[in-house]
């Protein structure tokens, strides 16, 4: 049997999406307060979940190639356009800190009843429209500094893939250890009952309780 199947039809797309949504919601990523607490150092779930997922999938892809289940480089590998990806990535980081979501998490936020996620999605459409409207002017930045097509870290550094995987596991382990220490120091991580208290509305200012100390009603 040879992977990948290159099947991007309706049912596999829907099924993979459902599993993706269940994992994001289970991680707590429907909550803008839990997501943004990554950047106040109170909750390292974004870092922990993302790095674990990347390492698991990267290891799986490497194993599949090693075992001959999949030809090398038979999956889509994005190409670096240095300026566009650095500036675009920074805008997404800034928008995440301001708006509370990224595109995928706004979909589970909406599915969990969050009106702010719906407004965030409307904002995303507006942002994409502005991009399309100004595309001629943006185009030089969009295409600037292209890297080699589908370049990977092992190619860039001249190292075998397992060495990259081991380095990623080491960085993740260090980040998890440091993150858990910071979470304890800043009263995190944020639990499900911390963000579901109160049925609607952001908390009014006179409710001076610390969010972490609130109990569900």
């Amino acid at each position, binding site marked *: 049997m040879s992977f990948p199947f290159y099947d991007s039809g309706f049912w596999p797309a829907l099924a993979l999406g459902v599993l993706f*949504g269940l994992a994001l919601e289970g*991680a707590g990523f429907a909550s803008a307060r839990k997501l943004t607490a990554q950047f106040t150092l109170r909750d390292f779930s974004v870092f922990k979940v993302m790095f674990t997922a990347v390492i698991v999938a990267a290891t799986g892809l490497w194993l599949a190639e090693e075992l001959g289940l999949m030809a090398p480089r038979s*999956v889509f590998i994005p190409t670096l356009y240095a300026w*566009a990806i650095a500036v675009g990535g920074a*805008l997404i980081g*800034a928008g995440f800190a301001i708006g509370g979501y990224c595109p995928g998490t706004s979909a589970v936020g909406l599915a969990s009843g969050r009106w702010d*996620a719906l*407004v965030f999605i409307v904002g995303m459409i*507006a942002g994409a429209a502005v991009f399309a409207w100004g595309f001629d002017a943006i185009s030089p930045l969009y295409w600037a500094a292209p890297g080699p097509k589908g370049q990977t870290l092992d190619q860039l550094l001249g190292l075998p893939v397992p060495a990259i995987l081991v380095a990623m596991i080491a960085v993740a382990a260090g980040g998890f250890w440091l993150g858990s220490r910071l979470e304890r120091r800043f009263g995190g991580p944020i639990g499900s009952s911390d963000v579901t208290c109160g049925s609607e509305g*952001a908390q009014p200012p006179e409710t001076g309780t610390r969010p972490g100390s609130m109990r569900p009603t």
Partner: protein
Amino acid sequence: MHGQPRPYWNPLVAGLVLGLVLFAAFLVTGHGLGASGLSARLTAALGSWILPEATAANAYLGGYVKAGAPLAGWITWEVLGVVLGGLIGSLTSRRFRPKVEGGPRLTPARRLAYAFVGGALVGFGARLARGCTSGLGLSGSATLAVAGFVFLIAFFAAGFLTMRLVRGAWT
């Protein structure tokens, strides 16, 4: 219906499950998971409804319009699944809450204004970067693409810097 919500999954368990789903996505489709691609398609669909000529002539959106129904594609079905999965997850865990969620010092109206501005920056940034936290950060990095790691570094650096300015909105 507002019983005690079930706790979130342990982040390492959630990461393991997400990683396996991502791996499965590569095996089945040959590409990973995504999300922001739908915002381009929604913009093309809305544009061709409101401003059909300008949208068809637009250098960025024209391709989506020319190809026929802008919404008919893998990313639309996948994000539909994400919403469905989020709904199943939040309802069965009693974590579903119709509310505006924000920091304790932000009025709901201001929170929604922040959500719109943040969403606009993300919508613009995702078109510029050619992907978002899902398509580049997760899927790109899983293929060990240099593009994925450049994205993640820029994303986390800007997130921490911006939070220094908007901390009061969340704490």
